Every structure is written in C-alpha cells, then in structure tokens.
C-alpha cells in the first residue's frame, strides 16, 4: 500500500517536473494572480483593479491565466495567501499598501516568481512597486468645483490623514482657489474607508453647513446618493459613480490599471520583466476622468480639458510654487515644483489658505 502510494507520488512529481520543463520550452499561458483588499463589488478601489484584470484578459485571451483572491485582510493571512499563490503563478500583484511586508517576505522564498506591490515603497530584484498620482485628477476636479460652487464652500469627506489623502486635499484646494479666490474647504474626517451610513452622515453635515459641492476620499457611493437627494453637486471616487447621482454627479476620478497590468504580464511572457518603480499619472494614462456632466458649463469644461491635456503631456504639476504651508512658512518658490521624495511622497501638512486644523 505504502509502496503504491510512494510510486504514485513519484509519478506525480515526475509529471510535474516534465510539465515544468515543457513550460519553459513552449509558450504556455502566463499565470498571474491578484490579491485584493476588498470585494470586487466595492465600486471603488478593488473594482477598478479588477477592471484592469478584465482588460488584460480581453487583450491576451488564452495567453494568460488569471486568478484572484478578494477581501484578503492585511495581516498574517495575507502572507499565507501570497505564498500559496506564489507556488503556482509566474507573477503576483498585491494591490494594497498593507501587503508590503508579506510580499517582500514571500518574494525572498520565490526568487523566480515576479511580484508587483501597489502603493508601497519596498523593492527587491523580483519585486516592483507601482502607484498613481491620484492628486492630479483632484487638481482637475478642484478647478471644476471652484467654478461650480455658489456658496463658496466645498465639502470634503476624507478617510484617514495619510499622505495620499493629504495630497488630494491640497491639490484640489490650490486648484479651486486658482479659479475662485473666495472658495473655502470644509474637511470632515470619517476615519473609515467604507461605512456608507457614516459617509452619508458626514455628507449631510457638510451640506447643512453650507457646502454645495462635495468631494470624497472614501470608497462608497453613499455621498453621491446624498448629494442627489439634497440637490448639490459631487464628484465620484475611483470609479464612475454617475449612476448613483444622475443630477449631482459632475465627473468621477477613475484609476486605470489595465495597460500597466498588460505591460507587466507581457514582460513576463517575453522574459523582459525587470524590477521597477512606477508612479504614473495622467501622462502615463493611469488616471482619467469619466465623462463630464452636462451641468458643467462649456468654459469650465474646456478649461478642465486643457488642464487634463497639460497633465497628460507632463506640462502641469499641481504643486507649482509659490506655495506656502498652512502656518505661512514657505514651501515652494515661484515656479518651483517639489521633489517626489520626500515632499510629495510623505506630505503631512496643509497648504496656506485651508482653514481647518491639520488632524492629529
């Protein structure tokens, strides 16, 4: 009995050895895996990553096999799941900041597997990092918001005071001020990425305090629906939210991961993959805006489109001096743009003109 089992184990290992051999010789499909922090149905962050997966599938067809795991907590489970995936895949995308350490750890034990970690900063020979300059889009919607507000109060529902969110607030504020010197931001921190009830409460509070244009850096569609109910304007986050506020929706910030994923997987297929650091933006096509609402007047629309064009050619930096920090101390001199590191990557201050206190 045990002998037979042994032979069958030998057979299987022999078989897999042969398979491993042939996979190097013949062009078998590339095996890619994705680790998601939320459900695909979050209509935001994870949903957009999954759109990227669909994009890759539609372009590569049978040349790629993709598997994914949803709602993976950013703890010890993550390492176990990444490890399991690493045993049977050629490239693994881990799509949340909290997967950084597990990704690096697993990558050490699988030197032949390629890893791609989103929004982190730790690299290795087989670990790339990638993220997007989300604040560029916020620069564009800031300009639209500055024009669209009548009360000159723009409400901002923020999640957590991390650099990514702070960059968005500063970029949107500077843009809004550039077209409307009287505009003021009211910023409410929800301290959650996803709590529709609380996001709705925050939106209601901001509207009651006079905001007539809402921006959000949380993930649910709740704020858009409240804006619709109350007859104010709002911008969608991460994916097109127009269906949730047909009249309220001005435009949505959309993350585009598809082309990046396609390129990286093709690189694996062609054997040209290298460890890289990508911080793409409008220029690289990683960010777009959804189609703008008819409520946006023609001159505002064309200005927004010009700004997008400038961003896509790399001619505009949302942070172009002169800019002071909130306390009045100088940050950037006239015409100066900040270095990516540390100024942009670790941004932890408001710019001058924002009334709200910086959160602790």
């Amino acid at each position, binding site marked *: 009995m045990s002998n037979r089992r042994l032979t069958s184990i030998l057979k299987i290992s022999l078989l897999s050895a042969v398979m491993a051999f042939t996979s190097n010789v013949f062009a078998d499909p590339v095996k890619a895996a994705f680790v998601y922090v939320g459900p695909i149905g979050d209509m935001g962050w994870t949903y957009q990553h999954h759109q990227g997966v669909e994009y890759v599938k539609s372009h590569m067809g049978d040349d790629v096999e993709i598997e994914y795991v949803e709602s993976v907590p950013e703890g010890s489970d993550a390492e176990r799941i990444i490890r399991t995936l690493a045993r049977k895949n050629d490239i693994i995308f881990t799509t949340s900041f909290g997967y950084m350490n597990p990704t690096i750890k697993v990558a050490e034990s699988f030197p032949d597997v390629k890893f791609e970690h989103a929004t982190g900063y730790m690299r290795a020979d087989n670990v790339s990092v990638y993220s997007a300059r989300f604040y560029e889009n916020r620069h564009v919607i800031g300009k639209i918001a500055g024009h669209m507000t009548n009360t000159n109060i723009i409400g901002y529902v923020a999640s957590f005071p991390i650099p990514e969110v702070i960059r968005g607030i500063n970029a949107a504020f500077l843009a809004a001020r550039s077209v409307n010197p009287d505009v003021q931001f009211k910023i409410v921190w929800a301290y959650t990425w996803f709590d529709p009830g609380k996001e709705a*409460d925050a939106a209601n*509070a901001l509207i009651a305090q006079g905001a007539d244009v809402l921006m959000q850096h949380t993930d649910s569609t709740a704020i858009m629906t409240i804006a619709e109910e109350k007859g104010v304007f709002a911008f969608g986050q991460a994916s097109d939210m127009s269906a949730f506020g047909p009249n309220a929706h001005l435009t949505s910030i959309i993350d585009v991961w598809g082309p990046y994923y396609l390129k990286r997987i093709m690189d694996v297929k062609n054997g040209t993959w290298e460890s890289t650091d990508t911080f793409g933006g409008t220029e690289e096509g990683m960010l777009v805006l959804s189609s703008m609402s008819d409520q946006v007047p023609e001159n505002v629309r064309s200005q927004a489109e010009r700004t997008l064009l400038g961003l896509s050619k790399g001619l505009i930096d949302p942070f172009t001096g002169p800019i002071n920090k909130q306390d009045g101390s100088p940050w950037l001199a006239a015409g100066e743009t900040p270095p990516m590191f540390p100024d942009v990557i670790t941004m932890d201050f408001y710019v001058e003109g924002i009334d709200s206190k910086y959160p602790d």
Partner: protein
Amino acid sequence: MNEGLIIAIIIGISVASVPLIFAAIGELVVERSGVLNLGVEGMMIVGALAGFIVEFHTGNSFLAVLAAMLAGMAIAFTFAFLTQILLTNHVATGLALTLFGLGIAAFAGRTYTEVRIELIPATHIPLLSDLPIFGPILFSYNPLVYIAFFMVFLVWWFLFRTKQGLILRAIGDNHDAAHAIGHNVIRYRILAILFGGAMAGIGGAFLSLVQVPIWGEDMTAGRGWIALGLVVFSSWQPFKVILGALIFGGITILQLHAQGFDIRISAQYLSMLPYLTTIIVLVSLRLRDKSKTNRTMPNCLGRIFHSTS
C-alpha cells in the same frame, strides 16, 4: 450657528439613533428572557440586504421592511434552534451568527452593489409638518422613525404591564423556578429571540432604505455591537435605550459637525466612547448591586436551560 443648522443637527441625531434603537430594543427583550444573542450585527446586515433587494425589485417599501424582518427572524431562528433545542453555548453561537450573517449577506448581495434605490420618503403630516422649527424637528421623519420610538413604549408596556411580560422577566431571572411553576421557558425564549431578529432586521433595513439608498458589504459597520452595548447601558430598562441611542448617535453626528466648524476632538476617543460608557455603566451597576437595591441584570442571562422533567 443658524436655526436651519440646529434643526439639521437634531434631525441627523434622531436618524442616526434609529437603527440602534431598533436593534437594542429587540435585544433587550431577548436578554430579559435570559438569552444572550451576540448575533445582532449579523441579523442587522441580513435585514439591510433583504430590505434593499425587495425595495429594488418591487419598489414597495412595506414589503421591503417586511422582508427585512423575516430575514432577521430567519437568522434568529437558527440561533434559537441551536441554543434552545440543541442547548449550545449562547456566546459562541451568537458570534458564529454574526460571522455567518456578514458572510452570507456579502455573498448574496454581490450583484446589488452597482444599483441604487429611491429612499423611502418622509411623511408629511398636514399642518404639523409645516410648523416652524417643531415641524421639521418632530413631524417630518420617515414613518420608521416613529415606529422605532413606539416600539420602545410597546416593549415597556409588554414587559411591565402584561402578564406575559412578567413571565418573560421571571424566566430571565430564574428559569428553573419559572419552569417549576409550569411556564414554558423554551417557547418564551424562542419567541423573544425571533422578536429580537425582527427588530434587528428592521434596524439594518433602516440603514439601506432610509439613511443611504445603496447596499454595501459590511454596511452596518459595527452598529450591532453598539446596540449590544446599549442594552447594558440601559440597564435593561426600555426607555433608557432611547437615551443611550441619542447619546451614541449624537456623538457621531456632533463630531462630524464639530469638524466642519474646526472644533477637533480625537476620533479615536469618540469611537471608544460607546464602549467606555457601557463599561462604566456595568461597573456602577455592580457597585450598586452590593447594596441589593437595584438588580436589573437578568439573573439567568446567557445560562443554558436544560429542562429536567
């Protein structure tokens, strides 16, 4: 601060407390009968989804609320069967129920994250709703808001003014004695658990039908746990549930408004507050207990009843 803003704050607080009131008043009856059901969060989320689905397909708010109640009761029935018939541990079963509810709602609701519904409109009472100040503050809510407050009264009346209520409390305090004089402990408890499920279901549906017209996985976001804390906070007295819910709901709304006015209170402290107050109330109840003057906690809470005859 103008008048409109104050009205908006008061309305915000009332609306934010309603899901808590529903869930807590249901759990209060359950605990009064001596059962500890930690599955409130699970029953709420299932109610939120069921209500949303029915509202989306039929557009009939009455059916939607009914569906939410039934969904909550279905989950609660599982709990009742396990704890009352198979005599499983209340705490473990309740926790399992929460995890199960969150999981099944996420699974069953996958296709509903991309759609929205119309919110159930607020009632407009002729004359009363048009009153200045008092109109918006008191007479222009969704019907479910009034039902929530009425349920609290109803539960108080049932528990303290009816024979069945007295029996239920007796069972919660000493199930062996109640059993010995011929009361059907299991039946009372199952009915109480089902009532708790129905109320938690409506509480969840209030979120997805009245507060926001969308469905999202985990959208109850811990409100079930706050409701459990509220029952302790109320020291098992129905009317104190309203007080607690207004305080807990009020903290959320006021801190959001305070941020708008740039008055900053640390968010971490605020999210601790409901649980902290619950602990303080528990401690003070215990301290008072020594003098044997105010023993409100049901004596048999969470204890398994095994009928010996």
